């Protein structure tokens, strides 16, 4: 029974407008000339706007955006390569010690990132992985792999055993069964895990700021941080960069909203 409850809809729009105001303000500031932003009374609409901020953002932060894309895609790849086979074993094949591993994966998610950063810094500096794409991908994966395994395992448990046993009986090996049965039916779960890995690595600041020095490359989050820290802060450039850095999140929300909600709730409520 769906009734148009107009007062509720209006109230809902108002709530959303208030809560999303900071995002509007970011876009608004990104389109105004630097000088206009430093007047005591802010302009609520970017009339007479300029794309200067975006020009500055692309020219100074363009390479950083590209670096972040590389790191995020690398993290998705490593996470899925490690997590998918492990989830299959944990969900479908009886392994002694499997439940213990699941418990360990739950616990390691509680370790504060700063502890990992501190520890990885010393390890990586011995291995020459500071300021290195692979190093940052591996560090980001410490956060995404446990999550991906738990999410994929929860899904793969629900794949009927008859399906995999039938494939075994027909003479397919474990790898064939994994490749031709498990992976295709788990496509949605793989997309969700990949999406979250991408978003995490894209947004990561802690590993990026501790494990890179900015000499060979700099992820966009560190770029924004240094941009903001600069005292002669040029806010329309910063806000334009912020808008560009927010684009993947917004696009993913629109394109893959149901995966996002599925991942968000599965991470919290399911085991």
């Amino acid at each position, binding site marked *: 029974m769906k009734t148009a409850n107009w007062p509720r809809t209006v109230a809902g729009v108002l709530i959303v407008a208030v809560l999303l105001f900071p995002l509007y303000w970011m876009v608004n500031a990104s389109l105004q000339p630097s000088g206009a932003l430093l007047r005591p009374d802010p302009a609520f609409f970017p009339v007479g706007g300029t794309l200067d901020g975006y020009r500055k953002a692309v020219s100074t932060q363009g390479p950083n955006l590209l670096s972040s894309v590389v790191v995020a895609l690398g993290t998705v790849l490593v996470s899925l390569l490690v997590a998918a086979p492990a989830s*299959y074993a944990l969900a479908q*094949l009886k392994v002694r010690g499997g439940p213990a591993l699941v418990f360990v994966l739950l616990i390691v998610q509680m370790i504060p990132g700063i502890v990992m950063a501190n520890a990885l810094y010393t390890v990586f500096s011995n291995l020459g992985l500071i300021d290195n794409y692979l190093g940052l991908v591996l560090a980001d994966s410490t956060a995404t792999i446990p999550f991906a395994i738990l999410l994929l395992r929860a899904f793969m448990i629900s794949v009927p055993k008859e399906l995999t046993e039938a494939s075994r009986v027909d003479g397919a090996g474990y790898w064939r069964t994994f490749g031709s049965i498990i992976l295709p039916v788990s496509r949605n779960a793989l997309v969700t895990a990949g999406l979250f890995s991408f978003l995490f690595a894209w947004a990561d600041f802690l590993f990026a700021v501790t494990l890179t020095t900015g000499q060979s490359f700099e992820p966009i989050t560190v770029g924004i941080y240094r941009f903001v820290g600069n005292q002669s802060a040029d806010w329309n450039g910063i806000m334009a960069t912020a808008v560009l850095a927010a684009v993947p999140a917004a696009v993913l929300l629109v394109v893959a909203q149901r995966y996002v909600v599925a991942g968000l709730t599965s991470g919290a409520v399911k085991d």
Partner: protein
Amino acid sequence: MTVAAAPRVSATPRANRKSRRDNRFAAWAFLLPALAYVVVFFGYPLAANLVMSTQNYTVKSFYTGEAPFVGIENYSAVLSNPLFSTAALNTALFTVGSIVFQFGIGLALAVFFNGRFLGSALLRSLLLLPWLLPLVVSGAVWRWMFDQDHGVLNAGLRFLGFDAVPWLSSTSWALSAVIITNIWIGIPFNLVILHGGLRAIPASLYEAAALDGAGAWQRFRHVTWPLLRPVTGIVLMLGLVYTIKVFDVIMVVTGGGPAGSTQTLTTWSYRLSFQDFAFGQGAAVGNVLIVVATVFGLLYLRSAKATLAEAA
């Protein structure tokens, strides 16, 4: 299972044993990369961190490979540092302040959006945006809004006839500023999980309560709240575990300043290791943080397990 009934399944005991061995072998092969990852990227660093916290580990140690053992000296240095109590208190205030408001606002919004009305689902998914943004982006936006002279918040206050607030430059306001930012970031998470919990409450209970003459508040008090309790427990525990280790927001909005007034255990650990290059002390603070986070983490796992048991 008889041999005749299942001719295609390995029939003899020997074949059975072989297939079981194959199975175990295959399972380990699939698990191997993940196991190796856990050992190399969690086991080793955590052990190294523990060792480092008992050493005088400095920049020089990276070149010479030497870091003299100092026992619990790092821990006593950290605990006797006046910044420790500041950072611990700030961590507590930041965590409790963030969670109380995130949860309260998130719950109110979940109840509101649980009502059916046009656009409810669309508006609710728009509210996810702040949660998906990189924290550095949210931090930068709020830092600009908090700006004392040109920020929109003070413009609003002046418009309403109040004095401008020195959000980021005053030691008494800066912590509120980072808490407000973090509340804003955390609302969507609370909203989505609590909304999911509300969805699971059968409508018939509300109809029965309405028939008994219960008003809106009574329905919330006697139906919604008790039935939502398991989900509430999970949201609060996860909130604690996440909020204790927040780093990005504080670094971007205030950098831990002014004068250490927004330094938490996390940002202080970063400062000790990566700005003061006292890696041993940074590791010691990190280990304190691990203990706190693990306690709440285990509580979370217990309440999550209880929820699953109840649901089963």
